[in-house]
């Protein structure tokens, strides 16, 4: 059962990266190790292939709620004890939930991996979700939703636009869940989720740092090896039906400035050796955005001064469908219509004239440099490995990413822009600012004693 292979990736400029080891244990748990001895530390991440993409209507947000409950105790470890023990060992720990996954991590000195794995293996199998702790934690999650989404107008715009762009696919639902679903979520919903997805054969351990791959694998066998594999539910693709025309929404929220968000359905990277469009669209995003030299900034913000900010984004590494996004804030006195027209004109210009060789070389230079810079962060390297694993891409796809990007031609960028950035795939959201209650009243009780 052990497919042990390593990629030596001396492919590119300055590729001094150590090999990546990728192993699958007998119970189906995958272990990916990246040795990096720059500092005597390591990061350990357990990724579950269970994110909001796997949720159902009525219990949206349960993946993230379960993430919170994972710190609330097991048969063997009291509530709060997990964090306490990691902290006592000098560790930093947390977790994150996305559309595609839920992941838990510890950053510690290199010799403390045993503790991290012991605790992670325990909560993979032995979690206890009490009604009492759930009732309190769901309140915390609702506060998190208020903090990150409800009180952030641009986040609301993003959430509502995704709900519009995806009518069938679960990416239309927010990771944190709709508030009404959170209000009606039960401890049993969380227990069901845990029972469904938390199994070694649905998990990937990523360890990066000053470790030895064989020792990491031995530890993984010791701690995770005894956990039995379980049958996982079939996952339905829930593919989004083809969009048949442009969609537009208006979001009214308290704000001083309007905001524009445009989203085109775009391809996901599936076969990293054969697919070329995702790489071309990544270059396109780099031509449009990313720093002051890119087109949206240079043209819309600096030359035309129609926007105070404008950026583009595209991430083709995901389990579900991808999107090409552009967002912008109009300059004072400029209309949203004029801003949108200017963005469309930039796209049309690329579709018509393509990009220059200088622009292409510039974006590639940044890609090559970024590949070096990212090695300054152990955590980021582990994140990328986990992201790729969850998306079903081999570590090789990551190792060869720069190569694939370097192979993109200007013609491919133009062709990808022509094919994908079409109105028929587009959804647009506009933030329509509502008053912030113009007159803040400040009632100061100077010198008042506080009631404790």
């Amino acid at each position, binding site marked *: 059962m052990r497919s042990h292979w390593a990629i030596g990736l*001396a492919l590119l*400029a*300055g*590729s*001094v990266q150590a090999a990546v080891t990728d192993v699958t244990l007998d119970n189906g748990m995958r272990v990916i190790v990246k040795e990096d001895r*720059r*500092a*005597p530390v390591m990061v350990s991440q357990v990724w579950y292939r269970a994110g909001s993409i796997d949720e159902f209507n009525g219990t949206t947000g349960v993946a993230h709620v379960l993430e919170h409950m994972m*710190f609330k105790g097991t048969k063997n470890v009291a509530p*709060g004890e997990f*964090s*306490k023990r990691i*902290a*006592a*060992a*000098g*560790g*930093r720990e947390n977790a994150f939930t996305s559309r595609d996954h839920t992941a838990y991590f510890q950053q*510690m*000195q290199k010799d403390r991996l045993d503790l991290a794995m012991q605790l992670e293996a325990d909560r993979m199998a032995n979690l206890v979700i009490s009604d009492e702790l759930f009732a*309190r934690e769901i309140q*915390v*999650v*609702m*506060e*998190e939703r208020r*903090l990150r989404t409800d009180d*952030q*107008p641009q986040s609301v715009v993003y959430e509502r636009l995704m709900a519009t762009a995806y009518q069938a696919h679960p990416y239309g639902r927010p990771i944190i869940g709709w508030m009404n679903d959170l209000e009606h979520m039960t401890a049993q919903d969380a227990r069901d989720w845990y029972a469904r997805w938390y199994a070694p054969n649905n998990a990937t351990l990523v360890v990066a740092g000053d470790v030895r791959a064989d020792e990491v694998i031995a530890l993984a066998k010791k701690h995770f090896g005894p956990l039995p594999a379980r049958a996982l539910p079939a996952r339905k693709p829930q593919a989004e039906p083809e969009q048949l025309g442009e969609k537009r929404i208006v979001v009214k*929220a*308290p704000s*001083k*400035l309007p905001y524009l968000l445009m989203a085109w359905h775009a391809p996901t990277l599936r076969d990293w050796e054969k697919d070329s469009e995702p790489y071309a669209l990544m270059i396109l995003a780099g031509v449009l955005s990313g*720093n*002051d*030299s890119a087109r949206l*900034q240079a043209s819309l*913000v*600096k030359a035309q*001064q129609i926007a*105070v900010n404008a950026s583009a984004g595209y991430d083709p590494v995901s389990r579900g469908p991808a999107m090409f996004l552009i967002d912008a804030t109009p*300059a*004072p006195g400029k209309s949203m219509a004029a801003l949108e027209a200017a963005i469309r004109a930039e796209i049309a210009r690329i579709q018509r004239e393509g990009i220059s060789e200088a622009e292409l070389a*510039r974006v590639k230079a940044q890609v*090559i*440099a970024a590949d070096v*810079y990212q090695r*300054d*962060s152990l955590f980021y390297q582990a994140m990328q490995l986990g992201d790729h694993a969850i998306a079903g891409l081999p570590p090789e796809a990551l190792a060869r990413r720069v190569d694939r990007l370097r192979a993109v031609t200007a013609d491919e960028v133009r062709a990808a822009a022509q094919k994908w950035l079409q109105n028929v795939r587009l959804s647009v959201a506009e933030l329509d*600012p509502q008053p*912030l209650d113009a*007159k803040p*009243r400040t009632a*100061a009780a*100077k*010198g*008042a*004693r*506080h009631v*404790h």
Partner: protein
Amino acid sequence: MSIKRIALRSFIAAFALALPLAAQAALAIQHWQTPQGARVYFVESRELPMLDVAVDFPAGSARDPAGRSGLARLTHGLLDQGAGGLSDTAIAHRLADVGAVLSGNFDRDRAGVKLRTLSSAREREAALDTLVRVLQRPDFPQAVIAREKRRLVAAIREAEADPGSVAGKAFFRTLYGAHPYARDPDGEPAGIGRLTRRDLVNFHRAHYSAPNAVIAIMGDLSRAEAEAIATRLAAGLSAAAPLPALPQPVAPAASESRIAHPSTQSHVHVGALGIARNDPDFFPLFVGNYVLGGGGFDSQLLKAVRDKHGFAYSAYSYFAPMGVAGPFQLGLQTKGEQADAALKVARATLADFIAKGPSEAELTQAKSNLTGGFPLRIDSNRKILDYLSVIGFYRLPLDYLDTWIAQVEAVDVAAVKDAFARRVDPDRMVTVVVGGAR
């Protein structure tokens, strides 16, 4: 790029940073002054074929002259928007062409520029040449000033939708009163409108001078190369004398402000004047605060506010040491109707901590985490660079990182109780509550 050479060298040097925990120097920081008086802090690290340079000046918003609100911020924002005869876009292109990243940092104390570049000769030279122009010869073109003023005002307006931002600014305003720290670092829209090109040129000349400069260099280069770079950076800066220290802030009376905002949550800030960077109480307060509200799930505040009551996602306290006394601050966010209840819990937690101090077990836990986690504080070039800048700017001892663990270890319960009793009076807190109306 001479790739092969770099690759080989990187393997050989791979253990340079693998430092044992105690007993030895955490980092070999080299320090000198350029002939022009700029102070330089350098760490050589050959593992990655890249280098980072950070140059900081006492040119944060606290240096805004009277009636020139936003001047420091605007000056900083204009540095790379046209310099040494290159337009804003030309600067951006030159950097991007070699994969270099120029970024800025700006707060109440400091204004700085950071450059990250590959260390290969062509890339490094192009990137450094651009950095030199940006620092030494910003052009401050009139049209660009007008544009950036509009963008700055727009950013201020945009932030007004964020209750957390509104609360943070109101907290500083209330806490610092007439002191320069009171002001929004971005400035006030009306004041920004009045700024002239002459204001920017003068501010740059007086603040971005060699004697005011702190240069941090980290990465794949030798001491001799670092010296040459530092001298080149400092050589074209003005010779304006070091700026005087900021005035000492005066502690305000206790107060409680409620500011309306159409948010679902109330953002609650409670605090007082804290400490300067070089304060002798730094370590007892820092370690003690881990127990109070700095240690995440280990902290009394998060346990009470989040775990026990489910009031908030985040609840914390910290000392933000600055040039002169920075704030000591507790914060949380909770839905409007339970703001008062959460505030009560936060205040009670603070009062209780001041009265009783941490338990032996809590302090042991705090010290274990801080000392055991020390290697994580210096595990990347970026983090080390930031430490170099802080050590230089705030004139911390050169062995600050070498003695850090011992300083934490030396803190005991009595020291924490004593320091908090002297420095934090729970009856003289400034409280700001923003939003929660929806």
